[in-house]
């Protein structure tokens, strides 16, 4: 401790009530609009992220209902081909970039600092900036759609269809620039989570004691950091091709069309695992809590997470099996696609073994976990099928693939996410969700989902192509399409009931205790919802399940200051305390930086000079953001 800080106020000098009062004064967000815009509290930002992502889920769901209305009958004239192109592009883009990835990261933004026993996420201002960028990207996409400028090039935006030759206007530019917004946001959150997990864990939480959800988010964050730059490079190159006539993807001038596919799928396939891996962590947490025992095979689960995260980067060519690459080269990706079934199977085995050896309590979160296992296994099996070149060649671009990836993405991510919402809702809001409505929600969604998407396998095998806005009555598809559209209403009913349950429970649900499920991870060691400072005294971890032995008093660390926002920095492997570090206070600069960046990025769709002139307000915002405070940031 430096002599300048010798008189600093520490928690050792006060009783519990006084510590709470002082920490609340230091860590609380200022009431009012200014405070709401300037807050850097990971819980406030996490809740905002989750709420915004679910709004986008609802909007994307409405688009899918419109598509099902159009496809219910042959030669329907409800939606024209141009609007239909926008609908499926918006649906895919919205669900992947504005819902699935952000909502998983949002759960981590809220939960990871609590689960590792710290008071805020690393780089809290960057966290605030990431949310504003995400919101701006979402608004850009949806406002463009309302103005009939929504992207119509598919969520993958293949060139040359999205290039200057075939995509006039600004629709493809909107798609490409929206990518920049969401990827900047996702990369920022990924960096925050990596640093939080590696350097801000509670004392004693060595690598072999990290909760599986935290492990899953750590691996996911590395996948984000390695995968997302590829799509940012690709979308930027596309904008340059369209705006200043570069020729990255123009073969006539030395460019390469396949370069786009390689860059896109080098991001696009890991994207599936960016969505799936957090779900693995969620299911592991739910299964452990509701079987009243630790997950079977902790080491195997960690291995499966890491192996999946790395193997995810060797599968991208299986999206390009009909692109004309050498069969031998393609077979290498088939091999990797088969190999990734090993860690996935290992995870399923560990969950089944946990349930087998435990005493399952069939609450709503647990039902969603079971639904996930069933659905994901079906999606995984069809995944192994389409990893085979001959089979994939037959079903490529048919509804079989639509069925497959909805089983993987909805079964593999949305089911666990809904279970996670029911599970962590008490920690988010301080209230429990309705168990009765929850069972109805699960039943409607599980039945509606399977009735909607399973017949699509058959449609695909019957040869119905994807992305067609209508079909002739002579084709043998109309009966199944009508059945699918009616089933989609059941699925939509389930989601509607879920949203009603969320709103009603948040307002009038039963008040939750700090640990209503008798769970064993650290987020349940504090009140529901947690105070602004998370923990009055940072917990000390003595095992993999710090709350499982039902000790009345959790060991805690002492000595942190109560007159400034302060975190504990710990070592990577053993989580031994190394330093005390100041955590940033509330600031309006992240919002101003996001506004300046948004203006520049949107302007740059129209003129390259926007990058030059837009850099000035961005620089001003960053100078304000990083202006020296004149106090040391950390103390050993």
């Amino acid at each position, binding site marked *: 401790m430096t002599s300048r800080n010798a008189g600093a106020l520490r928690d050792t000098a006060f009783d519990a009530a006084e510590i709470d009062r002082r920490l609340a004064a230091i860590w609380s967000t200022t009431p009012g609009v200014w405070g709401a815009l300037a807050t850097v509290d990971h819980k406030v930002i996490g809740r905002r992220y989750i709420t915004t992502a679910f709004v986008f889920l609802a909007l994307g769901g409405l688009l899918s209902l419109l598509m099902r209305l159009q496809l219910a009958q042959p030669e329907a004239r409800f939606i024209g081909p141009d609007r239909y192109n926008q609908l499926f592009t918006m649906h895919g883009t919205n669900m992947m970039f504005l819902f699935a990835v952000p909502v998983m990261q949002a759960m981590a933004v809220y939960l990871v600092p609590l689960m590792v026993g710290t008071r805020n996420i690393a780089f809290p201002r960057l966290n605030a900036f990431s949310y504003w960028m995400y919101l701006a990207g979402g608004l850009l996409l949806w406002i463009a759609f309302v103005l009939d400028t929504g992207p119509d090039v598919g969520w993958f935006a293949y060139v040359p269809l999205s290039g200057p030759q075939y995509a006039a206007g600004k629709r493809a530019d909107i798609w490409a620039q929206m990518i920049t917004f969401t990827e900047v946001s996702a990369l920022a959150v990924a960096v925050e989570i990596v640093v939080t997990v590696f350097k801000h864990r509670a004392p004693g939480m060595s690598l072999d004691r990290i909760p599986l959800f935290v492990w899953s988010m750590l691996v996911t964050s590395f996948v984000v950091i390695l995968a997302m730059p590829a799509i940012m490079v690709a979308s930027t190159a596309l904008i340059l091709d369209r705006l200043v006539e570069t020729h990255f993807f123009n073969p006539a001038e030395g460019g390469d069309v396949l370069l786009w596919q390689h860059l896109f799928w080098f991001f696009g396939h890991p994207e599936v695992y960016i969505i799936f891996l957090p779900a693995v962590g969620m299911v592991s947490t739910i299964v452990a809590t509701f079987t009243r025992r630790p997950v079977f095979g902790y080491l195997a689960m960690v291995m499966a997470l890491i192996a999946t995260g790395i193997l995810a980067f060797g599968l991208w060519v299986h999206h390009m099996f009909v692109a004309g690459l*050498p069969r*031998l080269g393609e077979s290498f990706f088939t*091999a990797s696609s088969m190999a990734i079934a090993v860690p996935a199977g290992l995870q399923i085995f560990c969950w089944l073994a946990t349930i087998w050896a435990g005493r399952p309590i069939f609450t709503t979160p647990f039902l969603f976990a079971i639904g996930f296992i069933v659905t994901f296994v079906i999606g995984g099996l069809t995944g192994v099928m389409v990893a085979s070149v001959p089979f994939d060649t037959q079903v490529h671009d048919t509804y079989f693939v639509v069925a497959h990836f909805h089983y993987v993405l909805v079964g593999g991510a949305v089911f666990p996410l809904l279970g996670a919402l029911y599970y962590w809702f008490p920690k988010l809001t301080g209230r429990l969700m309705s168990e009765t409505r929850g069972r109805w929600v699960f039943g409607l969604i599980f039945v509606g989902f399977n009735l909607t998407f399973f017949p699509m396998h058959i449609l695909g095998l019957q040869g119905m192509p994807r992305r067609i806005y209508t079909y002739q009555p002579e084709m043998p598809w109309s009966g199944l399409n009508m059945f699918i559209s009616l089933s989609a209403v059941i699925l939509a009913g389930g989601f509607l009931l879920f949203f009603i349950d969320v709103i009603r429970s948040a307002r009038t649900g039963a008040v939750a205790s700090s640990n209503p499920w008798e769970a064993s991870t650290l987020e349940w060691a504090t009140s529901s919802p947690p105070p602004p400072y998370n923990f009055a005294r940072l917990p000390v971890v003595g095992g993999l399940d710090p709350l499982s032995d039902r000790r009345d008093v959790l060991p805690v660390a002492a000595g942190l200051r109560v007159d400034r926002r302060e975190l504990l920095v710990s070592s990577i492997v053993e989580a031994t305390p190394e330093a005390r570090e100041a955590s940033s206070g509330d600031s309006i600069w992240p919002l101003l930086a996001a506004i300046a960046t948004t203006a520049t990025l949107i302007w740059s769709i129209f003129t390259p000079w926007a990058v030059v002139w837009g850099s000035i307000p961005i620089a001003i915002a960053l100078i304000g953001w990083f202006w020296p405070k004149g106090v040391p940031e950390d103390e050993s």
Partner: protein
Amino acid sequence: MPPISWALSTQLGQITPYIDCRQSFSWTAALCGILLVASVAGVAASRVTSNGLVKSKRFVVDAGFLVALAFVFALSLQEAATMLLDPCQR
């Protein structure tokens, strides 16, 4: 070692089939085989170095060992593919 070998092999699998098709020697099979052997050696080495470590460090080594096995399996499948497929086939 095995993840790097697998990444290298996967990348080479996009390049060497073109060379194999023009020549009589199968570079794809040879390079993949070398990388497979290197991976197996890496796995064996991790077992040797794990003795005498503290619990948390041993956990890291054990997790790495299991991860490596998955990549050895993937490389084995890739090596098998080189023996089954014609590099000129598209």
